[in-house]
């Protein structure tokens, strides 16, 4: 297992370097560097000032030197300064990541809670009505634009709620967007109130993941129940329930855990659309606002953070794979 993980870690090195170069170039390629932008807003700056400022920011140095400096700064927690928010990018990021988690964690749990049982049942009853339904649902989830689905949900549950006449369903009404009701007391009441706001966006965000987890669970399970060792288990005379729970599920979950771990950063990367539709103050919305305002330092910081998540969950996937599969655990 140690050798496996060491190998995976070593393979990660070129990945980290490659990703960091691309993210660095992304900002370096931005139209107008910070000084140009400063110039734009201030007519009093002279040509001498420009040279001095460019030197001060290190913009007159060759690209590779700037890259090394940038990496060095990033490793020390310096992700630059936001021009529009007038705060360091890192502090802005921390503030918003928490908000995003309020959305991502429920979305993730909803997706998993629906997808795994549905995927398993779908595989066990292949070609049944339920299987066809689940397969159609995965196509639906993978094809529907999240932002449109979000708007439709807002229309149904916040605007129209056609069941208003039914008192029993009166609770089925959710805010059209936002993060908290105005004037809610700080602390616990804020959180309780927020649950109301989380429902719709979490549902919308979870749909894509629900669909892809369902598909993976189903195909993983189908793959496993075709295996010879499942036939062996049945030949022992154990009950179908034991065959599934003890023999099939454990094997099917190994690739599933990996895929799920690898998909988690996608919950954040895909959030800009959902967060925009619902006016959710997370990092996705921050990214869109920053890009629209031309504040690319913030965008770069967010992308760097997301890339860090990708690397971290890559490692987590490897570790969990190594722990779950005895073929690697005892190598």
């Amino acid at each position: 297992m140690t050798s496996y993980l060491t190998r995976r870690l070593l393979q990660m090195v070129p990945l980290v370097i490659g990703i960091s170069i691309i993210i660095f170039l992304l900002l370096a390629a931005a139209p107008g560097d910070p000084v140009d932008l400063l110039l734009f807003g201030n007519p009093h700056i002279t040509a001498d000032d420009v040279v001095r400022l460019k030197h001060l920011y290190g913009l007159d140095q060759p690209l590779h030197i700037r890259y090394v400096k940038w990496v060095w700064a990033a490793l020390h927690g310096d992700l630059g300064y936001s021009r529009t928010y007038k705060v360091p990018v890192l502090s802005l990021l921390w503030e918003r990541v928490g908000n995003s988690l309020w959305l991502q964690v429920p979305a993730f749990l909803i997706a998993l809670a629906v997808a795994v049982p549905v995927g398993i049942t779908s595989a066990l009853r292949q070609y049944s009505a339920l299987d066809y339904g689940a397969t159609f649902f995965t196509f639906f989830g993978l094809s529907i634009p999240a932002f449109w689905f979000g708007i439709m949900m807002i229309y149904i549950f916040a605007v129209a709620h056609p069941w208003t006449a039914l008192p029993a369903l009166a609770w089925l009404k959710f805010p059209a967007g936002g993060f908290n009701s105005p004037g809610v007391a700080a602390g616990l009441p804020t959180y309780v109130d927020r649950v109301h706001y989380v429902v719709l966006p979490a549902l919308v965000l979870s749909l894509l993941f629900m669909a892809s987890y369902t598909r993976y669970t189903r195909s993983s399970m189908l793959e496993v129940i075709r295996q010879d060792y499942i036939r062996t288990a049945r030949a022992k005379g154990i009950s179908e329930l034991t065959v599934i729970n003890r023999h099939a599920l454990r094997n099917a979950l190994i690739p599933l855990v990996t895929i799920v771990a690898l998909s988690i950063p996608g919950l954040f990367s895909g959030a800009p659309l959902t967060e925009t539709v619902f006016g959710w103050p997370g990092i996705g919305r921050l990214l869109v606002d920053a890009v629209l305002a031309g504040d690319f330092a913030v965008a770069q910081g967010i992308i760097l953070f997301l890339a860090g998540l990708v690397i971290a969950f890559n490692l987590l996937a490897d570790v969990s794979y190594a722990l779950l599969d005895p073929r690697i655990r005892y190598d």
Partner: protein
Amino acid sequence: MAEVLLSVRNLKTYFYTDEGVVKAVDGLSYELRKGETLGIVGESGSGKSVHALSIMRLIPQPPGKIVEGQILFNGTDLLKLSEEEMRRIRGNRIAMIFQEPMTSLNPVLTIGEQIAEAIMLHQGLGKRDAWDRAAEMLEKVQIPLARQRVRDYPHQFSGGMRQRVMIAMALSCNPSILIADEPTTALDVTIQAQILELITELQRELNMAMILITHNLGVVAETCDDVVVMYAGRPVERATVDATFTDPKHPYTWGLLHSVPKLYERKERLIPIEGQPPSLIDLPPGCSFAPRCPFAMEICVKADPPEYPVGANHAARCFLHSEYATEDEKRAAAAAGLAAAAYGPR
């Protein structure tokens, strides 16, 4: 003669696929007596393995279905049992070992867990006793350091060792019938003999009956009492092992005998059976072997041959042994049979 333990009567197992109905087993009958070894011989696709899974009632359904026949085990028809009742027989009274030891064991469970599972279920032993018995079984199949190795995972064993584990698992509940489906095919030649010897030794010790499914006539000659030769889902010849090798009656059996590679002999003597086994969908009328049969007569492509008795406990599904064959044809057939017998592994 010992009492009949298992009687298969006119078994038909079909698979309903998009391309058509595959008649994998189409009218198989035989009897298996206590302590006896029955060899089922045929090419791949002849229905040998499907018949075995039919006895265990492990045919995936859909697309498969046992459409007709009886499988009488101690007089009860297995096909009429509930799933619950069938489970008490599987792995307990009738056990099975498979062709692929590399993939037949669950990679995420230890050997001990996998053997003890059946023991706990069928013998009602507690966990500790079941594990003891699992270790005992591993000793019985001659796995070194059995007591420690129960805690190992399948990938820590070689192919031959895994097949020993499979045997230990199958025999752990003292079944009265062992179905061995090509148990040595996937193994190295040197290991094949060891595994076969181990199986027959344990069979004697436990006084089990065995159905040995193989395409290897050499294996049959060494281990079996009776032989059923299958072709395209049907039994084409049924005989004692002696009769099969000294007085074979079906042209397909002759072909099989001609294609047995023998040690110490020059390879050029091998004569393969010409042509391919037929597709089991839309079988044409007539004998399914006729297109490949050097002795095919006019009748063979028109009608399906019934089983003709050709000796004591010996039957062949071939018109050469009927009134349709001329004396010349019968003589030629007899000569071919003798030639094939001279060729065989005995």
